[in-house]
């Protein structure tokens, strides 16, 4: 939701980034204010997921120019875990399986690390168990998922729920959801979307990276951005997503091309 006098959470200017020497992001500008939900759409290979990973600090991506201020701090000065501690959260497109580590052990370790950073009290295993079970209800997750190994043998939908559960526990000020809707059936999509909606408030910002409009029926964005060749070439309201759904992306690129030529 767009609020009056909300503060800027993330401000990206002229971001260029490459992987293995190939430039993927080519001068990207992007601003998120608190309370806002942004959807980033665009064809395959336009750089959406790269942008999400660059924000989270993936070391395979090299930022070659541009700036990103996160709540006034230079994001690119921070290691991935420092970004997490500062309040950046990335829900992975493909959550990693960690055999040998119980989910509750991992969730508590992560939760307590971030609580310690914020000067809050850490929870012992029993306290945490109560706390996390409450959060799991939000995502209609069975408590069985606590004793299983992190994401091991989880279905696609279960992995995505586990990601949103982590977001619920860590309460980031910037939540980036990288294709959280991919691989979800309609029930799981509804549950995950409901969870995300419960987590949005006027103090945080959400960035949804998605291919499809259907997610946006459930999580209604304030802004829809179209990415193409490493840049945001069009920004509109939620109705832009519907237009993209019926017309595809080509017309946006053509419009952008024409605009560039007249300049």
């Amino acid at each position, binding site marked *: 939701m767009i609020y009056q006098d909300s503060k800027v959470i993330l401000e990206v200017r002229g971001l260029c980034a490459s992987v293995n020497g190939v430039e993927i992001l080519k001068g990207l500008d992007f601003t998120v204010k608190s309370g806002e939900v942004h959807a980033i759409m665009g064809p395959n290979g336009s750089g959406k997921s790269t942008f999400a990973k660059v924000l*989270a*600090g*993936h*070391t*395979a991506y090299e930022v070659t120019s541009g700036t990103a201020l996160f709540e006034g701090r230079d994001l690119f000065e921070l*290691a*991935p*875990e420092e*970004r*997490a*501690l500062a309040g950046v*959260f*990335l829900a*992975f497109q493909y*959550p*990693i399986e*960690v*055999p*040998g*580590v119980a989910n509750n052990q*991992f969730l508590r*370790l*992560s939760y307590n*690390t*971030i609580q310690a*950073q914020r000067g809050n009290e850490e929870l012992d295993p029993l306290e945490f168990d109560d706390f996390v079970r409450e959060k799991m209800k939000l995502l209609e997750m069975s408590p069985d998922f606590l004793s299983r*190994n992190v994401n091991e043998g989880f279905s696609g939908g279960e992995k995505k729920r586990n990601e949103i559960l*982590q977001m619920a526990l*860590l309460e980031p000020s910037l939540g980036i959801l990288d294709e959280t809707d991919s691989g979800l059936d309609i029930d799981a999509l509804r549950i995950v979307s409901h969870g995300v909606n419960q987590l949005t408030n006027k103090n945080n910002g959400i960035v949804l990276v998605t291919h499809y409009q259907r997610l946006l029926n459930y999580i209604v964005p304030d802004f829809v951005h179209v990415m193409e060749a490493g840049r945001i070439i069009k920004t509109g309201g939620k109705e832009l997503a519907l237009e993209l759904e019926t017309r595809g992306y080509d017309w946006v690129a053509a419009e952008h091309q024409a605009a560039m030529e007249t300049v």
Partner: protein
Amino acid sequence: MNTLTSIRRPPAGCFQTLLTGLPKLQASPLPRINALRAEAVNRLDVLSLPSTRDEDWRFTDISELTKLSFSPALNATYLESADVAHFYIEEATTRLVFVDGLYAPQLSNSASNNGMVVSNLQTVLTTHAAVIEAHIGRHVTFNDNVFAALNTAFLRDAAVVIVPRNESDATPIHLLFIATQKEIVSTPRCLVIAETGSAVTVIEDYVVLYQPAWHEETPFTEETHFTNAVTEIMLEDNARVNHIRIQREGSKAFHIANCVVSLGRASNYQSVSVALGAQIARYNLEVLLAEGAECAVDGLTLIATNQLSDTHTCIDHAQPHGVSRQLHKCIIGGSAHAVFNGKIMVRNGAQRTDSIQSSRNLLLSGKAHVDTKPQLEIFADDVKCAHGATIGQLDSEEVFYLQSRGLSDSVARNLLTYAFGAEIIERIPVASLKHQLEQTVLEQTSSQL
């Protein structure tokens, strides 16, 4: 002082000096044992120490061992229960303890009721002569195995477990071998017989009385000793044995062990072996399956500094309908060197064999080294077999995932390394031991990162 000296390829009889130093063993009341010892001594005349020119020892150079002097323990170090209680495993109320290879009755808690025997060999030699004669030295043969021959030449005592027909013991049995003296060669021996339809869990555990290297808070002196163990396990039809083997010798020790497991029809053998200690360690495990027998043979090697740890296994499907599963993992830090050689043999006629073998290796440093060789030899035509090996470092995507949840790079790496090892440790069906080893893995991995 007796010496195991050798030139590069030692001549026959390199152990003679050691053997002549041994006080003449009293004749055993069992003729079989006297015969075995005599045969073994003779065999040592012919056998030579392996070198890296032997295919089976290609990656494992034991020349360090041959440069040192060892003598057998003549007097047992007298220990009180309080000295060693920290080695005890809560669930294992039955326990046999050997100190430098010599039986320590004051530390042991033997059992002999309902026909169940958990005792040292000397005690049950005459009462169970027939069954002992039927099995001892029959499974681990020493014709071409110099270390098995050496062990057998020293055969005086052993840990004996006999589980009678259809008897099942839910509580694990702890066979604890403690090394306390330097420059000692000890020759532990275990004989486990699970009769038809019986079930038992046996923990074979090699420890030192000083703290291993990764507990830096307690000062200690590391000493060199040489453990040369032989274990024979016999499962009669439909028997079930859980065998947990923990090798946590000191960092200067030499540990060589030969184990042969013989599975009767439709029997089930589950084994987890964990190798943590020793300067040079070598474990040979041979599992022979009769019709419809099943086994799971899992292992974890966790080594660092300049340790060398070698595991050779052979799972031999001699008859049809056998099932075997093997997962062997190595975590190698420092400039350590791990070796895994796992052979799956499917003999002619062993139709419908179902076998899966996997070797997974994690290198924690640029100087760490592993040689892994999974081998399938199939002589039957209707079988389902798969094997594979991976060698790698920690996956950077996994590290990033954990970092993105606020964990530092080192905590993330530590957790993933721990998890890699925990997959094997989790398979140990004894809760307190499992917990203890999880802690050990956690401490050792964190000290390296």
